[in-house]
């Protein structure tokens, strides 16, 4: 039978919802008394972030989530440092809309920079309050007391008083005090140490619970059947095609699913179900994508940067160049297809999701479920790595709508084809850059870029299921803050950055790790190299001539030292060899305001096979204060390897109806044999603010590799990915 959605669906026995969900949220953690009490969730309040428990542990409630980037330890370190307790004394709750404050989406390298900093200030405020409470208890002056190992003790020595005696299980009832003094870095005992991540042992022994592993009583397994063409409508379903399997069909307008008690039965039913869809072929041709961006009519122009008189007459002897750079659509290509569990009832909904923005999605889910937001609870459970927004939220919306339709808790597991085909994509980007160099410096620079415009007031990326089911949601585009770093970070007399904002994209866009900026920096730092070559200058020297920021200068110099960089103009002497080797670099001051990164790559270009092998990557990285150096190092390694994969191999392929790169054969990623050696130098600046390490390095990889290839083989690759076909074409052009 088809179960149609209706508002008055059948009731079922009430699960022990609250107890159950709290147990999930605190999986592997101590369940403390506070979980049962109403939580303060206002992020202005200390109690939203911290609770001192009767057993002298402290619970940290974090609205940002750990996707494998190490917040679970780093934020514990920040809180432990200010509170003077051991990290082992901290229990940790993340991303549960019923238990944690809204700290914004976990995106833009903001986990530490904003989420952690907020919790640090809450902890500092709490410490100040604990000292004041202790002063009353002990009849001492606050200035004569300090915190030590979960106690407030007199500076002069003697016995103190435990935190739990001062406030155990009670509330602070205090606003975050921006003036509460932070510890001086000189006093740090926990921050700055490479403490191990607490989830690692469970991830290596199989006991870590992913969203894919969540099971709730009465749960059905569902598979969603996506249309064969992106915009196709469902015409008819032959339910008898799966009736023999013990699966049922659930349909809400164009949202089509099968449900079964057993997961494999659902998989078989999804494969076997016969459905008729209408035809749709609304995508542009793949090979004309760059032209389609350039010729889009519905655009808004915006000048992002204007300095001097760009495009004016050039000084005598200036060398002028122009070039076009293209970056294709990329998939998040999460290793595990998205999954979620939802239990939607007439009076409320609980959704277990790996979303990076549980809080931000609450209103979205409430809207399409026609429930008050306070009746919708999203609980974060880690999924397969996601680098912006993959299909996690879509799977959650699938599960929610199907759960409501069938009146049971539902687990939706996407297939590999679903994930590659339907995750929202990092958008295609096109940059035209014109510029000129004279006397070894940049005299003129003009960037024109074609980018999707984020629709004003978009709460989230529009989700597939509400649209298919004809439910209410805000429509539009959101690809993140994608227009930054389109200008060179070096002295230039005249600069203009013009963006043509596109109102449409072929496929649904989403932020993908350092949104837009890997492409922008690929263009900018490749073009800088082209100017350096035109000027006959060494690429490092050329950049340093135009760079005044001492932190920028330092990362470039340190990278060059790690690379054993031999100054000379590119291309190098090896360009006619059977295997041409060379080196290239790129530098970024991320968003002109955040981390400083310089990356050098040694490359081998093999003439016979036209293949490119990154052999070694050296990176100097300054993200201000380092909370956990091993965590930063892991993030930088990830940025390097993931972006190398994107630049060397990845491009979303599509025909006029659908994405055709829907598995790891048609959308290959970097393998072990292709992974380079990596050499990372972290610069710690404890007196500076911590500014995030999850993204910046990604932006340097495309240009560093392209510049190394030019140095090695005298060919300039201006379109990603650097496939053997593109290498061959570039060779042909240069000879």
């Amino acid at each position: 039978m088809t179960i149609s959605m209706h508002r008055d669906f059948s009731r079922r026995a009430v699960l022990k919802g609250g107890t159950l969900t709290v147990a999930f949220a605190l999986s592997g953690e101590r369940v403390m008394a506070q979980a049962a009490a109403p939580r303060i969730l206002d992020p202005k309040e200390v109690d939203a972030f911290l609770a001192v428990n009767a057993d002298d542990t402290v619970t940290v409630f974090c609205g940002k989530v750990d996707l494998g980037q190490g917040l679970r330890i780093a934020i514990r370190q920040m809180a432990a440092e200010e509170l003077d307790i051991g990290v082992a004394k901290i229990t940790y709750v993340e991303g549960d809309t019923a238990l944690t404050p809204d700290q914004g989406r976990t995106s833009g390298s903001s986990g530490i920079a904003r989420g952690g900093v907020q919790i640090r200030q809450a902890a500092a405020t709490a410490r100040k309050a604990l000292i004041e409470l202790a002063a009353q208890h002990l009849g001492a002056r606050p200035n004569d007391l300090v915190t030590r190992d979960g106690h407030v003790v007199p500076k002069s020595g003697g016995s103190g008083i435990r935190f739990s005696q001062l406030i155990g299980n009670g509330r602070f009832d205090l606003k975050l005090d921006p003036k509460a003094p932070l510890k001086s870095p000189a006093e740090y005992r926990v921050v700055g140490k490479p403490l191990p991540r607490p989830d690692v042992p469970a991830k290596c022994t199989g006991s870590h619970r992913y969203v894919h592993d969540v099971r709730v009583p009465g749960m059905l397994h569902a598979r969603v059947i996506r249309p064969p063409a992106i915009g196709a409508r469902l015409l008819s379903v032959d339910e008898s095609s799966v009736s023999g399997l013990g699966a049922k069909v659930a349909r809400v307008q164009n949202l089509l699913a099968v449900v079964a008690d057993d997961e494999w039965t659902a998989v078989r039913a999804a494969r076997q179900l016969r459905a008729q869809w209408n035809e749709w072929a609304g995508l542009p041709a793949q090979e004309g994508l760059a032209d389609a961006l350039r010729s889009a009519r519905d655009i808004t122009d915006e000048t992002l940067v204007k300095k001097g008189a760009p495009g004016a007459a050039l000084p005598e002897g200036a060398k002028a160049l122009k070039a076009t750079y293209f970056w294709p659509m990329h998939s998040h290509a999460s290793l595990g297809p998205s999954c979620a569990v939802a239990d939607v009832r007439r009076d409320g909904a609980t959704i277990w999701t790996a979303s990076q923005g549980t809080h931000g999605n609450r209103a979205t889910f409430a809207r399409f479920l026609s429930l008050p937001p306070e009746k919708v609870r999203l609980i974060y459970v880690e999924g397969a790595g996601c680098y912006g927004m993959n299909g996690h939220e879509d799977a959650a919306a699938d599960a929610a709508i199907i759960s409501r339709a069938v009146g049971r808790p539902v687990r939706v597991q996407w297939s590999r084809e679903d994930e590659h085909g339907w995750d929202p994509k990092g958008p295609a980007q096109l940059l035209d850059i014109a510029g000129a160099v004279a006397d070894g410096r940049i005299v003129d620079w003009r960037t024109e870029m074609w980018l999707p415009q984020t629709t004003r007031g978009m709460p989230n990326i529009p989700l597939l299921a509400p649209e298919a089911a004809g439910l209410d949601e805000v429509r539009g585009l959101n690809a993140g803050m994608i227009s930054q770093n389109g200008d060179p970070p070096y002295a230039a007399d005249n600069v203009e950055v013009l963006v043509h904002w596109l109102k449409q994209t072929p496929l649904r866009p989403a932020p993908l790790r350092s949104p837009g900026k890997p492409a922008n920096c690929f263009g900018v730092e490749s073009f800088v190299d082209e100017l350096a070559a035109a000027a006959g200058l060494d690429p490092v020297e050329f950049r340093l001539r135009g760079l005044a920021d001492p932190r920028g200068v330092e990362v470039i110099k340190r990278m060059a030292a790690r690379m054993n960089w031999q100054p000379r103009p590119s291309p190098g002497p090896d360009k006619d060899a059977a295997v041409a080797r060379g080196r290239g670099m790129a530098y970024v001051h991320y968003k002109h305001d955040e981390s400083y990164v310089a990356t050098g790559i040694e490359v081998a270009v093999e003439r016979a096979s036209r293949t490119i092998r990154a052999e070694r990557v050296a990176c100097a990285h300054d993200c201000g204060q380092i909370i956990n150096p091993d965590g930063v190092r892991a993030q930088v390694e990830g940025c390097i390897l993931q972006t190398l994969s994107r630049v060397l191999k990845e491009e979303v392929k599509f025909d006029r109806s659908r994405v055709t790169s829907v598995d790891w054969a048609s959308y290959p990623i970097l393998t072990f044999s292709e992974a380079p050696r990596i050499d990372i130098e972290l610069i710690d600046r404890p007196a500076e603010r911590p500014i995030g390490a999850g993204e910046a390095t990604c932006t340097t990889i495309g240009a560093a590799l392209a510049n190394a290839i030019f140095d090695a083989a005298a060919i300039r690759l201006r379109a990603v990915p650097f496939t053997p076909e593109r290498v061959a074409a570039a060779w042909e052009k240069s000879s």
Partner: protein
Amino acid sequence: MSTYNLRINGIARSVESADAEKPLLYVLRGLGLTAAKFGCGLGQCGACTVLLGGRAVRSCQTTIADAQQKSITTLEGLGSTSAMHPVQAAFIKEQVPQCGYCTGGMIMSAAALLAEKAKPSEQEVRAALDGNLCRCGTHFRVVRAVMAASGQGG
């Protein structure tokens, strides 16, 4: 329904299935052994890797019928937090996983490699793991951990 007799992590189990083609992955996960992950269902990514008779296989490509008569070892059975396999211990020491979704499969592939060749070269380690994909970019640490587990660490 047919009954299939499996030996999983040293324990004999009888499992009912209406489908002889049911992949071992779904059998294991249905039994609560969730360390093997669904990554592609196509044998392309390695997230579902288990040992079958000591050899690394993709459990999404191994049918319940084919899994009989041979011992099956999952990550849960390879070692535990109190009695770890050297590869697991090395992965923890090197702090390998980020999201960790691929990690279990890599540990299984590496354990199979080291059982076959105690001291593989770095190139052999990479080649043995080429069928295991990682999206977070932990490759560098994985190789270091496997070399360390084979007593060749720096």
